[in-house]
């Protein structure tokens, strides 16, 4: 079978399995575990296929391009290191699956469990055989995510959730640092391909970015491998089901960091910085973890801290930057995987059978559960590093290397501390075994229940223990080839000569380990007293610190956000105005240039000056008593009047017309709305706020006024408008250039504009449609006017006049519409005029009377208006011209004479319909609720009387 396919399958298998399990999540437990076990077993087979060539020196690899722009390729490769880890992952994975099958209680979501487990397995596999650092990152973060699911498997338990979150926070966060580091590494090395990077170690170490990259990468590794001070997530991850712990903390999750250190050994190791940081961190962790483990009572907690300590050991070894140390590390990885998994499973068995994990309540279980006792004790012995077990050999190798390393200029430091660590580990290992299985049972209840589990459950740990034993007895045959090859892969050079054996004659290492064993026994003997000491000592609880920091951050960030982000329109606008004003000032400062240009001014006429006074005065009045709302409306219409006068004066007749007609409709709208709003609400703003706003307002006014001035006093440059003027008649068929621009040159704008108006109409309708019901309805029913009303609804003169005014106004509307193309006017203005004409009817004769006589549905008007406009636009497509291409033609009929028909007219019709519809829709609706409100009010008065 070709390598690429094998590799791909190797990685894909677990994911496929996870998917399958997830899809069959309702199936029986056997199905789930079956699929999982099958996948793991198949994976092992595939790996076995690869093992031969790999150990033979070949590096099967395959690569598919994924994101070339990024240098992220789907590259997979299996070298001895990867092979070993993959073996551990799959092998122990298989055992864990089997164990888990029996471990889980009935009724638990086994589907979710095994799916997550497979997901995790896949992610781990991905890490160890990824051939591209970015790809490695992908899998790295996946392990964090899937472990989040696994640790939080028992969702109902608070500690499970917290543990999961903590693990995610720490490892995921470290992962992010790692991302940074890896990208830097890739940037420095000029490639993200692992093989390439491994070759370019010198370049990397030489680069100025090396410290940064190193720091970030180490952060990733240390967090993952629970190195001090990032260790605290690991004990809390023990909230996970024991199989998970067995998997995560023996061979996989926490080993990922170690793996990465080993993987990048050739690139990163060897510098002062590296050795200093890594080995010291490892050392500290080893001693610390072991020390704490001594005084734990929860079985799994002891194992957790022992794991921390063992990982510290591994990290330290890799940190030595010594080839022999690397070799020791590799061998210890194997040992640790074996005995730690076995121990975790045994712990699981004990918990499963006795219902407790508290070592103080147990004891003397050897009688009740001999098999388990045997298994666990042997594994513990290996962990303690007692001969003739594998742990002994790797510890020997470790102690043998320690004198080689000098930290902080103290040659004795490393050996001494290492020995201390070893002593502690002997201590806790012995305590574990002794207090659990030997001596008298401390409590009756758990002991009564205790018995050995079925074969299925102890098979896995037993197998692992056997392995641990054999690693001690026949290391050369069992492990040597693998260890050698792996070490070679780690150091990127042929492995040094080595001999794995229990007996190397009496040397420093032997003495040190003897001391360790003796010390350990001593510790166990004196444990009670030490424990008392320990418990008296004030010790920081990492978990509480973590949660407290989280809570603290949450509290204050929340405070800050709420303080700044409470949705307050005033703040929003204040911010916006301030920013914009600042930007304008900045622009003026940086941009430079002069304020007043050279354009000669137009001397103002008297009425202009008076009108200006009117406008200023009215504006001032609006601001001044903006709370007397009715008066304000009058002032507003004064402003509108002046503005339209200005337009009329400054040769913009169309604008004048538009402004005038829009003005009145707006006023009607405001009056209608005002009827239901409070007429003169109380004062709200405080004085300082007013000053602040006033200052801002004035500066804004000055700035914009200044801009206008600067603009007005400059002569215009060449403008595209010249073209419009030149082609209005010839090309657009109209003499009113503004109108031609609107319906022809820039008809597209107008299309959008009428649509805006149409939507506004719809939106208003939708808003008011629901007014009668709900809270608003209740309020309206409870509404009573705050002014006295005249009983007369329809003053006779007004009604009579309105009847003659309607036709007159309509005629004017038609007139304005028809002539729009050549003279001021056009569809929009006409629409407003006609709308006003009808509104006068509503004003005079009331809603019902007029609405009965209405012959048009506003919604239809809007819709048809848009459709007509669109149709005019699309019509030109039929003639092979672009959208909205206009055409016009002069016809002449007998008697009637010459007249023009332009497609623009059709477009203008669309404008007319939409605008008319929208305006009527808005005002009619509003008046309607107003009316309903009034009715509600009167009816209530009647009932009140």
């Amino acid at each position, binding site marked *: 079978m070709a390598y690429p396919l094998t590799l791909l399958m190797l990685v894909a298998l677990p994911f496929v399995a996870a998917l399958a399990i997830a899809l069959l999540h309702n199936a029986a437990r056997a199905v789930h575990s079956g699929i999982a076990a099958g996948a793991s077993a198949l994976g092992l087979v595939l790996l076995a296929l690869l093992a031969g060539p790999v150990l033979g020196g070949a590096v099967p690899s395959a690569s598919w391009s994924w994101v070339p722009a990024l240098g992220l390729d789907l590259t997979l490769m299996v070298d001895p290191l990867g092979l070993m880890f993959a073996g551990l992952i799959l092998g122990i994975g298989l055992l864990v699956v089997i164990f888990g099958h029996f471990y889980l209680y009935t009724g638990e979501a086994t589907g979710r469990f095994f799916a997550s487990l497979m997901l995790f397995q896949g992610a781990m596999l991905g890490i160890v055989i990824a051939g591209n650092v970015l790809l490695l990152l992908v899998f790295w973060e996946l392990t964090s995510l899937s472990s989040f699911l696994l640790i939080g498997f028992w969702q109902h338990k608070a500690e499970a959730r917290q543990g999961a979150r903590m693990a995610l926070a720490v490892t995921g966060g470290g992962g992010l640092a790692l991302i940074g580091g890896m990208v830097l590494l890739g940037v420095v090395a000029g490639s993200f391909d692992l093989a390439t990077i491994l070759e370019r170690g010198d370049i990397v170490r030489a680069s100025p970015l090396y410290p940064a990259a190193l720091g970030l990468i180490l952060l990733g590794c240390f967090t993952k491998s629970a190195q001090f001070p990032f260790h605290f997530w690991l004990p809390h991850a023990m909230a996970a089901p024991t199989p998970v712990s067995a998997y995560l903390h023996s061979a996989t999750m926490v080993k990922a960091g170690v793996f990465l250190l080993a993987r990048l050994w050739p690139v990163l190791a060897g510098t002062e910085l590296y050795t200093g940081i890594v080995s010291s961190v490892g050392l500290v962790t080893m001693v610390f973890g072991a020390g704490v483990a001594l005084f734990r009572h929860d079985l799994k907690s002891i194992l957790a801290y022992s794991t921390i300590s063992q990982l510290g050991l591994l990290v330290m070894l890799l940190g030595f930057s010594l080839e022999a140390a690397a070799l020791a590390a590799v061998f210890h990885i194997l040992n640790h995987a074996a005995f730690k998994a076995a121990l975790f499973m045994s712990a699981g068995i004990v918990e499963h059978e006795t219902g407790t994990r508290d070592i103080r309540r147990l004891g003397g279980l050897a009688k009740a559960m001999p098999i388990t006792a045997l298994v666990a004790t042997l594994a513990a012995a290996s962990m303690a590093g007692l001969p003739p077990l594998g742990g002994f050999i790797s510890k020997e190798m470790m102690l043998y290397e320690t004198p080689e390393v000098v930290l902080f200029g103290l040659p004795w430091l490393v050996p001494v501390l290492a020995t201390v660590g070893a002593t502690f580990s002997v201590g806790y290992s012995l305590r574990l075994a002794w207090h659990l299985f030997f001596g008298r049972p401390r409590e009756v209840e758990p002991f009564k229940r205790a018995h050995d589990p079925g074969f299925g459950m102890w098979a896995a740990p037993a197998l692992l223990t056997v392995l641990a034993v054999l690693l001690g007895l026949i290391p050369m045959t069992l492990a040597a080839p693998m260890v050698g090859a792996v070490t070679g892969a780690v150091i990127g050079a042929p492995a040094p000569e080595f001999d794995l054996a229990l007996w190397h004659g009496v040397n420093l290492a032997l003495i040190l380990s003897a001391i360790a064993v003796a010390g350990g026994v001593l510790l166990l003997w004196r444990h009670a007293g030490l424990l008392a000491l320990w418990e008296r000592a004030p010790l920081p609880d990492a978990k509480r610190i973590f949660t407290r920091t989280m809570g603290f951050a949450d509290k204050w960030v929340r405070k800050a956000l709420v303080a700044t982000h409470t949705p307050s329109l005033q703040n929003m606008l204040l911010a916006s105005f301030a920013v914009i004003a600042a930007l304008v000032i900045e622009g003026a400062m940086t941009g430079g240039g002069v304020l007043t240009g050279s354009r000669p001014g137009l001397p103002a006429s008297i009425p202009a000056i008076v009108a200006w006074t009117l406008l200023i005065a009215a504006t001032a009045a609006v601001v001044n008593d903006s709370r007397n709302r009715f008066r304000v409306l009058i002032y507003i219409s004064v402003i509108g009047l002046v503005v339209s006068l200005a337009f009329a004066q400054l040769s913009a007749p169309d604008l004048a017309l538009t402004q005038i007609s829009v003005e009145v409709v707006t006023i009607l709208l405001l009056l209608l709305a005002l009827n239901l709003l409070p007429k003169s609400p109380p004062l709200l703003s405080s004085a300082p706020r007013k000053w602040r706003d006033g200052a801002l307002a004035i500066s804004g006014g000055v700035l914009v006024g200044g801009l206008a001035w600067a603009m007005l006093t400059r002569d215009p440059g060449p403008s595209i408008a010249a073209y419009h003027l030149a082609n209005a008649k010839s090309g657009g068929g109209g003499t009113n250039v503004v109108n031609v621009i609107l319906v022809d040159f820039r008809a597209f704008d107008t299309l959008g504009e009428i649509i805006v108006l149409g939507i506004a109409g719809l939106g208003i309708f939708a808003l008011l449609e629901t007014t009668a019901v709900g809270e608003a309805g209740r309020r309206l029913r409870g509404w009573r006017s705050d002014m006295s009303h005249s009983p*007369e609804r*329809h003053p*006779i003169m007004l009604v009579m006049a309105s009847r003659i005014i309607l036709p007159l106004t309509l005629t004017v509307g038609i007139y304005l519409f028809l002539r729009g193309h050549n003279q001021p006017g056009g569809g929009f203005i006409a629409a407003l005029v006609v709308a006003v004409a009808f509104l006068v009817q509503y004003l005079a004769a*009331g809603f019902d009377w007029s609405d009965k006589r209405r012959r048009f549905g506003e919604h239809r008007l809007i819709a048809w208006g848009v459709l007509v406009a669109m149709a005019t636009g699309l019509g030109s497509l039929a003639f092979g011209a672009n959208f909205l291409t206009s055409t016009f033609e002069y016809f002449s009929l007998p008697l009637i004479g010459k007249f023009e028909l332009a497609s623009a007219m059709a477009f203008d019709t669309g404008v007319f319909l939409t605008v008319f519809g929208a305006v009527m829709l808005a005002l009619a609706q509003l008046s309607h609720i107003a009316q309903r409100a009034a009715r509600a009010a009167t009816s209530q008065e009647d009932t009140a009387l």
Partner: protein
Amino acid sequence: MSGGGSLAEWLVSALIVLGGSFALIGSWGLVRLPSLMERLHGPTKATTLGLGAMLVASVAWFHLVDGQWTTHEMLISVFLFVTAPISANLIAKVHLHRLRHGEAAEPVGPAGTPAPPSSGIDWATHEAPHEGTPGDLVGD
């Protein structure tokens, strides 16, 4: 704008002056007369004769300048003639209404408050028009 026949120009000028002065007088009345009802009389000048004169002037002028009759200015006066009484009427109604409700802001004029037309009947502003009377226009 080269003036045409001087007589016509004289005429136009006169009309403009007339219009202007009447508008002015109207507004002056608005300022000086004692109470709303009196002031109400002012603007009617401005509307009718004032604007009328100016519009006539405009008609004449455009006939003068480009020799064609631009009659459409007259429309404006038509509109004003139709609308001015209505505005006045409604404003007066507002005044009466607020007088009746004793708004401090609406001072009573020298004419005092109007007496009811006859016993038992009040003005439409204060009493809804009776069924069937010309004033009752809803739903016809």
